[in-house]
C-alpha cells in the first residue's frame, strides 16, 4: 500500500517536470479560482459494478456460455420436429424403439468424412455371416460405411475370417410392420408420385415368406436322413437335430428382419448358417411370390402387413429424418431434444428454488440479525437443527408419502409430485445459507450511525429493516444467491441420478434423470448417453461458478478474490 503511494508521488513529481513551461501562466490578482465542474457523468453503483464485471473476461465468457445453454434449453423444445409428432401415436413424447441406442450423428462430420460423431461405429470380429447379412441388405441404405480390415486366423485347423467393419447405426434395414389402410394408400400414392413404386428404390419391399421356406428346408433335411438310412449310412443329423435347426433358423429370421434369403445349416450345426445359392451361384430369395410377381402387401385383420425400408418409411411417416445429433437412448428417444427439455427443467428448478430460498432466508436472517439476543439464539438453534437433516432424507420421505397419497396424485399428477418433492427437499434447508449471510450483514449495519439517527427520528423496525439496512446488504445477498443456483442444479442432478425420485412414469426429464438412464444402459457400450448430459452439467456448474464469482467481485470490491 505504502509502496504504491510512493510510486504515485514520484510519478507525479516526474509529471510536473515534464509539463512544458508554456502551459503555465501567471495568476491575476483579482481572478477567482474554482474547481472545474465535472464534465463526465457520475458513475452509479450499478454502472461501476457492471464496468468491473466487464473487465473480468472469464466471467463474460461464462455469462455467454450460460446464455447459449439457456437459448438451447428454450429454443430446441420448440423448434425440434420431435416436439410436434402425433400425440395419439406417441403419448409420452417421441420415441421409436427401432432406433434405440442410435449413435450421435453430426451432419458436418458426415460430410467431411471424419469418421467420428457421424452415427457410425467400428465393429471388430465380425464373421462371414454378419458381413453377408450387411452386404446382402435389400434396403435403400447400406449399413456398411467402410470395410476396415480383414483378419484370417486358424482355430482348430479351420481358417476363419473376421472383419472389422464400420457400421452405420441408422441403417437398420427392413422391417415388417402393420399399417392402417389409409396409411397404406397414402404410402402407395407417395411412391407413385415419386416414381419409385415397386422399384429398386421403393420404400415398400417384397414380403418374406420364411415359414414355407423352413418347411421346404425341413423336408430337404428329412429326405437326406431317409436316403442315408436306405443306403445304410450314418445320417448326418437325426429328427431332433432337424427340429433344433429349424427352431434356430426361425428365431434368426425373426430377429434379423433384414435377412431375405435362404439360409442353411453349415455342417448341420444348429447355430452356424450359410447362405444358399442356386446353380448359377445367385442368392435364393425367400420373397413371397404370387406367380412370378413378388407380394408387397397382405391384408391382415383390417390392416396391411408390409415390409418397408424403415429409415425411408420413418421419414415418410413422421416428416423428418431419424437423425439424432446426440444419439438416442434405450427407448429410441432423441437425447438432443430431451437434454434441452432436461436443462430447461433443471434451470427452472434451480432458479425457482433459489428465489424461494432467497426470500425465506432474507426474512429469517433479517429478523434474527436485527433483533439479536434471545430471538437470535433461538432462531439460530432452529436453523442448526434444520440444516443437519440431509435433503435426501426429506426427498425420500416426501416422494414416498406423496406417491402413496391418491388424492394428491390425481390433483397434481406424477409431474406435480416430483416437482413438489424437490421443492420441499431443497427449500427445507436451502435457505439456511442465505439467512446466515443476511444475519451477518444486519449485524454489520444495524449499529451504524445512520440507523441510530433514523431510529431517533422515530422510525419503526420494519422501516429500519427494509428502507435502511436491507438496501445496503442487497449487493452481497443477490450475488451470493446467484451462487446458490448451481448448488441446487447439482443437488437435483445427484438425487435424480441416484434414482431417489422416479422420473420414468412421468413426462418430466432432468439432467439427472438422463444421467440415470445413461448409467442403466451400460457405459461401456453406449458412452454417448452419459457423455452429453455430463458435458452440459459440467458447463453449467463451471459457468455459474465463474459468473457468480465475477458478480461477487464486481459488487463487493472488498471481497475480491477472497474465495476464488
Amino acid at each position, binding site marked *: 500500500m505504502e509502496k504504491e503511494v510512493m510510486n504515485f508521488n514520484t510519478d507525479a513529481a516526474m509529471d510536473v517536470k515534464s509539463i512544458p513551461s508554456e502551459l503555465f501562466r501567471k495568476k491575476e490578482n483579482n481572478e477567482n479560482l474554482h474547481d472545474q465542474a465535472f464534465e463526465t457523468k457520475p458513475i452509479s453503483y450499478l454502472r461501476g459494478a457492471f464496468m468491473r464485471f466487464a473487465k473480468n473476461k472469464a466471467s463474460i465468457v461464462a455469462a455467454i456460455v450460460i446464455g447459449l445453454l439457456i437459448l438451447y434449453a428454450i429454443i430446441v423444445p420448440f423448434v425440434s420436429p420431435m416436439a410436434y409428432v402425433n400425440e395419439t401415436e406417441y403419448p409420452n413424447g417421441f420415441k421409436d424403439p427401432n432406433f434405440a441406442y442410435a449413435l450421435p450423428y453430426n451432419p458436418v462430420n458426415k460430410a467431411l468424412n471424419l469418421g467420428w460423431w457421424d452415427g457410425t461405429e467400428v465393429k471388430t470380429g465380425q464373421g462371414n455371416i454378419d458381413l453377408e447379412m450387411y452386404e446382402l441388405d435389400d434396403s435403400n441404405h447400406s449399413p456398411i460405411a467402410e470395410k476396415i480390415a480383414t483378419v484370417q486366423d486358424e482355430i482348430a485347423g479351420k481358417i476363419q475370417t473376421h472383419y472389422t467393419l464400420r457400421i452405420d447405426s441408422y441403417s437398420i434395414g427392413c422391417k415388417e410392420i402393420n399399417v392402417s389402410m389409409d396409411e397404406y394408400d397414402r404410402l402407395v400414392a407417395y411412391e407413385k408420385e415419386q416414381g419409385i413404386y415397386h422399384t429398386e428404390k421403393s420404400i415398400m419391399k417384397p414380403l418374406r415368406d420364411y415359414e414355407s421356406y423352413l418347411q421346404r428346408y425341413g423336408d430337404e433335411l428329412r429326405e437326406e436322413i431317409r436316403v442315408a438310412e436306405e443306403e445304410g449310412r450314418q445320417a448326418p443329423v437325426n429328427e431332433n437335430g432337424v427340429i433344433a435347426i429349424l427352431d434356430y433358423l426361425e428365431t434368426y429370421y425373426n430377429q434379423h428382419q433384414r435377412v431375405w434369403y435362404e439360409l442353411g445349416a453349415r455342417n448341420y450345426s444348429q447355430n452356424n448358417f450359410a447362405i444358399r445359392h442356386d446353380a448359377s451361384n445367385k442368392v435364393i430369395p425367400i420373397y413371397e411370390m404370387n406367380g412370378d410377381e413378388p407380394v408387397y402387401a397382405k391384408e391382415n385383420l383390417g390392416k396391411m402387413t408390409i415390409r418397408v425400408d424403415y429409415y425411408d418409411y420413418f421419414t415418410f411417416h413422421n416428416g423428418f429424418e431419424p437423425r439424432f445429433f446426440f444419439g438416442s437412448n434405450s427407448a429410441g428417444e432423441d437425447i438432443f431434444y430431451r437434454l434441452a427439455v432436461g436443462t430447461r427443467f433443471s434451470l427452472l428448478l434451480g432458479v425457482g428454488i433459489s428465489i424461494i430460498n432467497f426470500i425465506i432466508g432474507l426474512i429469517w436472517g433479517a429478523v434474527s440479525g436485527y433483533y439479536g439476543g434471545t430471538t437470535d439464539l433461538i432462531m439460530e*438453534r432452529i436453523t*442448526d*437443527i434444520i440444516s*443437519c*437433516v*440431509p435433503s*435426501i*432424507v426429506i426427498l*425420500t*420421505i416426501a416422494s*414416498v*408419502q406423496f406417491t*402413496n397419497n391418491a388424492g394428491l396424485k390425481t390433483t397434481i399428477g406424477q409431474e406435480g409430485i416430483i416437482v413438489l418433492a424437490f421443492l420441499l427437499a431443497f427449500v427445507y434447508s436451502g435457505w439456511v445459507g442465505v439467512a446466515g449471510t443476511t444475519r451477518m450483514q444486519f*449485524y454489520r449495519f444495524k449499529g451504524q450511525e445512520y440507523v441510530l439517527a433514523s431510529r431517533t427520528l422515530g422510525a419503526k423496525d420494519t422501516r429500519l429493516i427494509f428502507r435502511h439496512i436491507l438496501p445496503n446488504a442487497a449487493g452481497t445477498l443477490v450475488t451470493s444467491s446467484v451462487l446458490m443456483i*448451481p448448488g441446487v442444479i*447439482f443437488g437435483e*442432478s*445427484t438425487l435424480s*441420478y*441416484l*434414482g*431417489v425420485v422416479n422420473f420414468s412414469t412421468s413426462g418430466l426429464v432432468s439432467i439427472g434423470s438422463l*444421467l440415470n438412464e445413461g*448409467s442403466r444402459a451400460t*457405459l*461401456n457400450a453406449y*458412452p454417448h448417453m*452419459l457423455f452429453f448430459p*455430463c458435458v452440459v*452439467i*459440467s458447463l453449467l*456448474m*463451471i459457468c455459474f*461458478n*465463474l459468473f457468480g464469482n465475477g458478480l461477487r467481485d464486481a459488487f463487493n470490491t472488498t471481497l475480491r478474490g*477472497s*474465495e*476464488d
Partner: protein
Amino acid sequence: MKQKKKEIETEDIILEEEKKPLDVSNASSDDELVLESDRPFLERLGRGFVNFWRNKSTIDTLKYIGKRLLLMVLTFGIVFILCFILVRLLPINEDTGMGDPEKFKLSMVAKGVYRRIDNGDGTYSYEMIPVFLQFINFFKNLFSGTDHPFGYSYKIEWLSSPADILGGRLAPTVLMNIYVMIVSVPVGLGLGTFMALRKNHWEDHVLSVLIMLVISVPSYVYAFVLQYLFGYVWQVLPPTAASSTVGYTSPTYFVSIILPVLSMCFGSIAGYARYTRAELTEVLTSDFMLLARTKGLTRGQATVRHAFRNSLVPIFPMILGEIIGVLSGSMIIESIFNVNGVGGLYLKSIETQDYDVFQFVSMFYIFIGLVGTLVVDVSYGIVDPRIRMGGGK
C-alpha cells in the same frame, strides 16, 4: 555434534528464545539450554499436555466443549424425533416378497408398531399402535436389551438388524476414504504451497484455473470418465469394485477400488490446494514474515518454519473433520463403482423402501455430521490459542 547443529539451526534458537518467556514455569532446572526440538517426542507431548492443563483458559475450553456437547445431544434428539415420526408415518407394505408375512407381523409386534389381538378362535388379528406410543415402545426396547432395538431389515437382509448390516458395510467405505485422504492431503497441501510461493506467476494462474474447473465439475463426471477410459477402453483397471469375498485388504480389492478413490481425490485435492493457497498467501503477507526475513532467514526457511505452520491452523481442523467423515460413504461414487459400502447401503434402503435401515443409516449420517462439526469447532480453539472459544461478540 550439538555445536554443529546449533550453528546450522540458529533460527531455531531464536524461535525458542521467542517462546522462552512463556516456558519459564516448565524450564528445566539445569542451566544448560535444551532445545525443545531436542527433547524426545513423548516428553514434548507430555509437557504440552501439562501446559494445556495448567492453562487458565483450559477450564473455559472444557466448559465450551461441554456446552457444545449438550447442544449436540439436544439437536440430535430433536432430529431423531422428527425422523422417527416422519418415517413411521410412511405407508407400511406388508407384502415384502422376502419371507413369511406372519413373521413380518410378529416382528412389527416386537418393534412395538403392531398390537396382536387374540380373536379367540386360534387366529390373531393385528392393529397399528399410534406413533406416539410407538415412540415410547422404541425406548422401552432400546433399554430393555432386546436383540433388535433398531428394528428389522425387510428387503436387504430379511429380518436382520440394521446396525449389523451397517457394521458389515463400514469396512470398504472407511478403507476408500482413508486412501483418498492419504493421497489428497499431501498432494493438496503441496500444490497449495507451490501455488502460494509462485503467486502471480504462470504456474499459479494455470493451476488456479485448473482447480476452479476441477472444483466445479461434479465428481460423478470424473467417475464416468475414469471408469470408461481405464475400465473399458484401455482395460488397465477393473471398472467396478471386486466382490467382498476377496477380502477388503487383499491386493485384488485394492486394485479394484483405485478408480473410485481417484475420482474422489480430484475434488478433494483441489479443495485442499485452494484452501492452502488462500491461507498461505495471507500468512506470507503478514508482518511476522517480514520480521523473519529481516532476521536473515532465507525465503524457503521462513516459509516452511513460520508461514506453513501457521497456515495449517485452519487446515488442520478441516482434515480432522474429514477423518470423522471417513465413516460416511459417497452414495454416488459407491453406486457407480458398485462398492458394497455405507453409501450403497443407504441408496439401496431408499430404492427398496427398507424403512428401518433407511432411518438407521440416516441417523448415522446425521450423527457423523454433528460430531464432525463439533470436533472441527473445538479443534480450532485448541490448535490456535488466538481463537477464544465461545467468546462473546
